[in-house]
């Protein structure tokens, strides 16, 4: 082995050894200058190739090339390691306090009444009910007479009514006028509708009474509709709306437009039925009224009560909303206090 070959071998050992000790990119650059730079042994050897004899030249060439390749490979892998280390190090200093609050995006929200309404639409939509809407300012006939509440009948006392200056026109006290309106539109087909909307009653405003409130009415008219269908439909609704513990109770009552009539009670969702302030210790909460459509109302709607039968139910959406979100004062719903609305 010639002297130059020995020198190259020594150079390679020296170079790789010093490379192993390098810990930073600037040091690496210095190393590159010394072992692969213009004045490095490898490069100067390439430069004076002509000075070697014909026999030596291939041997020296092969040897210098091997050293260069080894240096380059070692350099590349060292550089990669150092760069990755540097990146990791720089990220260390970019660390955030992830517990700081985010920058708020403005979120729009539905009013809680409309949230409930959506849920009601969804549940009854699944059962094949269609929405039907009717006027909020109604005729006396639609609101009362066609619902089997003729003028001066004592059952008119059941509603505290706002009248208008036209004695035949009033602010509807319930969504029930939609019963006759929808029947007349669907006749002679079967009817399966949900009638949502605002109703108005002359009440002194307090924690549980509103002069304006939302209600929905269910109406099903067909051949062979029975009280059992009413019970089944209502039970499915309350369990989906309020959870599987929402047992229902049908208590005899009277509404002029249903016969038989029932008051619909639900097991108190606040105490699970064991009695609390909300349910006055009774374990039950009044949800609405229901019953089999009165034959006279069917007649006003155009259906022959000897052939058709139907059920109707009216449930307060305000009340449903109060129960869903455990709200203790109905007045929150129409005060539109932003601090209330933003909780939804």
């Amino acid at each position, binding site marked *: 082995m010639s002297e130059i070959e020995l020198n190259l071998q020594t150079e390679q050992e020296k170079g790789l050894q010093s490379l192993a000790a390098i810990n930073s990119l600037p040091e690496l650059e210095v190393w590159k200058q010394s072992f692969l730079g213009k004045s490095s042994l490898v490069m100067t050897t390439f430069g004076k190739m002509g000075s070697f004899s014909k026999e030596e030249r291939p041997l020296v060439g092969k040897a210098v090339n091997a050293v260069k390749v080894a240096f380059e490979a070692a350099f590349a892998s060292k550089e990669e390691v150092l760069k990755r280390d540097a990146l990791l190090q720089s990220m260390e200093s970019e660390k955030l306090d992830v517990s700081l609050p985010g920058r708020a995006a403005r979120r729009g929200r539905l009013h809680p009444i409309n949230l409930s309404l959506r849920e009601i639409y969804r549940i009854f939509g699944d059962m094949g009910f269609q929405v039907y809407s009717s006027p909020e300012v109604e005729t006396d006939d639609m609101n009362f007479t066609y619902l089997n509440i003729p003028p001066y009948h004592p059952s008119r006392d059941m509603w505290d009514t706002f009248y208008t200056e036209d004695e035949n026109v009033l602010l509807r006290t319930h969504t029930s006028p939609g019963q006759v309106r929808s029947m007349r539109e669907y006749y002679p087909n079967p009817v399966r509708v949900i009638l949502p909307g605002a109703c108005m009653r002359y009440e002194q405003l307090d924690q549980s009474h509103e002069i304006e409130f939302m209600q929905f009415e269910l109406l099903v008219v067909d051949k062979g509709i029975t009280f059992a269908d009413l019970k089944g439909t209502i039970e499915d609704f309350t369990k989906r709306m309020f959870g599987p513990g929402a047992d229902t109770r049908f208590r005899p*009552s009277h509404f002029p437009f249903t016969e038989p009539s029932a008051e619909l009670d639900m097991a108190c969702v606040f105490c699970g039925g064991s009695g609390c302030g909300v349910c006055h210790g009774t374990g039950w909460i009044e949800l609405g009224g229901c019953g089999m459509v009165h034959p006279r109302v069917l007649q006003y709607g155009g259906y022959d009560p000897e052939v058709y039968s139907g059920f109707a139910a009216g449930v307060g959406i305000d009340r449903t909303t109060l129960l869903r979100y455990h709200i203790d004062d109905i007045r929150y719903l129409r005060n539109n206090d932003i601090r209330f609305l933003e909780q939804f």
Partner: protein
Amino acid sequence: MKAPLSWIKDYVDLDGKTVEEIGQALTMTGLEVEEILLVGLEKPAGQRLQNKYSGLSWDREKFVVAEVLEVNQHPNADKLTLCQLNDGKEIKTVLTGAPNLYPFIGKGKLEPTIKVAYAKEGAQLYDGHQPGLVLTKLKKVTIRGVESSSMIASEKELGISEEHDGVIFLDDDAPVGMPLADYMGDAVFDVKILPNMARDASIIGIARELAAAYGLELKEPQGLPLKTGGAIEDYVGLEIRDPELNTRFMLGMVKNVCAKPSPYWVRRRLVLAGMRPIDALVDATNYTMLETGQPLHAFDYDVLRKRANGKPTIITRRAEEGEKLTTLDDHQLTLSSETELVTDTAGPLSLAGVMGGQESGISAESTQVLLEAAAWNFINIRKTGSRYRINSEASYRFSRDVHPALTEQALGLCLCRMREWAGGEVVEGVIDQYPLRREDPVNTLTEADIERSLGLRIDLKEAKAILERLGFSCQLEGEILSAKTPANRTDIETGIIGKANLIEEVSRIYGFERIPTRRLTGELPPQLGVKQVEFEEQVRDIMVSLGMQDTLAYRQTSIEREAKLLPECKADETLRYVKIANPISPERTVMRRSTLATMLELLERNGRLAEGLALFEIGPVFLPVEGQLLPDEPKRLAIGLWGAKYLSAWSENQNRTVDFYDLKGVLEGLMQGLHLQNVEYRPLGDHPTFHPGKAAGIYAGETLLGVMGEIHPLIRQNYDFPEGAILAAEIYLDQLMPLVEKGFQVRSISTFPTMVEDIALIVDENVPASQVEALIRKAGGKLLVGVRLFDLFRSEKLGQGKKSLAYQLTYQAFDRTLSVADAAAIRKKIVKLLGFELGAVLRDS
């Protein structure tokens, strides 16, 4: 209706049933018990009570019946007495200040003794000296040198009534030493009487329902047997002029009575049922009315005799227009000819079925009583009550239709009581005219009828038993049950409705809980849908996606509140409103015509509660239409913006407040969401509500879709707004809806690269930006796929009345990569067209 348990028990044997059970049984037969007032009886034990309770229980050890043996003056106090009292175990001295004991001072040993309610040391009762119901416990005290630890109780102290003027004198047969709760402890059921249950506005009615629910016998009380005609005809005559209004009229008479106080048990029952005891005569009529549901009226016979100057004749008739009557409660009425009266030959005596007259009514001096039991047309009674604004126990019942048959029962019972409680003798016979006999309907029912309504087969034998318990007379022939309505109820009709009435009666007693549940089956109706509701929901969703808060406003407002949208709050007299005839307050007298007004009120109310507000509401307005009974109720979308655009954050403050263009951005977002093209915003000009330079009308073609802008500085002054611009819009959803298509077409996306360049054009100040953009798009043709304004610049260098609009233009083709030459050609066309149309010039730098 307040029904004391002790009274109900006169007619149905409820022994062994707890107050809680009875309350529940009433509720579950349809007589909802709103509250149970305990008057002495113990509150039922148990955690889950289904009734609501109030009132006082009397400890059986500490409250007993006692007798006062002797009453003496307190040595050191004028107004106090010392009573010698026997409580059944020992003789005690009890201190009391009751004025009704004064007359017995110094009378020595009393014979008979006075029976009283005695409360011992430690008894819990209401404080008689404090207003309202304040519980207190009896403790040993010394009053002016005399020790006292117990008391003789008043009604107030026992929770019977508000009465505290004296102590209770019990009836003479009260057993000394008996726990008071056993002697007269009671529970009062406050029952809600629904309009179809008029028959249950009586103790017997309630007892009948309980008897039916429990399958027990109803023991109806027996009054005097009545015989038409007889001696009474020598005393009085009767004439019914209008049988439609007065279907039946009966008269009975008692002579030589004395209007002394009724027995204590009667007074106590009246008080518990909510009526004030007066004297034996008045109490007898009230007691019988509460018992049977039939109101009665007592005349002072001597007054009638005097008026007629001989034998009086009672005439029932309509009033003559303008006739006058002074009622018992001292109101002078001028009568309308629709009003039915009881009169005599000298004129009106009483407002039939509603209220007696002052002159002819009985008084403490009356000794001869003529007793009326009549049946009246319920609609006429109702009209009379509301015309003269009189609500009486009688009109409450008559306006719910009292069955004419009840007159007999009530008259017999009342005569009996007058004789018993007020002494005197009953004149032989009664007068009874019943010109319009009520036919009680007979209905038939089959098992199939019941099943068709309830989805459940009930054995007709069981149905029959239920109906019989309710007083129906039934016959079962084969598969048909026929049921005759009892002569105490007026709510059962005939035909298909009568069947429904019977099914209700059977099912409520049978129990709704025994009816099965079933899911709906059968054919679904045609799918009509409601486009309007669906559209409303779509708009609501888009608004929420734009970060807006949904709200819900009242429909009722006042003209004054809406006039705040106008200068100096001066209402527009040409606007017609739906006016409420009986408004609940001066702030809510009409139905709103504007959602803008309610929105501004919302902004006002919330202005100081948040940094910024972004609210919307969707709801109807009410617009009367000439020649139309009902108003139009078109839906409106109201939007309100105020304050900080961005919520403040810890890192940097973007504290810009909202302006016109933020509102416009919301509206553009809405229109985009609805995929509505070609919406234009035109200056609104001199709209009274908006800032003249910062408002726009929103148009699709020539259709006005709504108005938007900043609220006029002068209108601002009508509200209490916080600092900063108030922005609002009102969109006419009824106009918008028909323009919105159910679907929309999606564009394909080119795979070739885009080329982007900027262009700045100088135009006259008054040229709207929308026009510039429209012309750029027109000149750019289909290769120009994007135009975005990114700068608006004004300076003196541009010249007076000039502005520079800088746009970023995006070019793209579907079939090739565009070259620089393509772009230059388009740009050239744009500059040329805008130069030609608007005199626009390119801005160099």
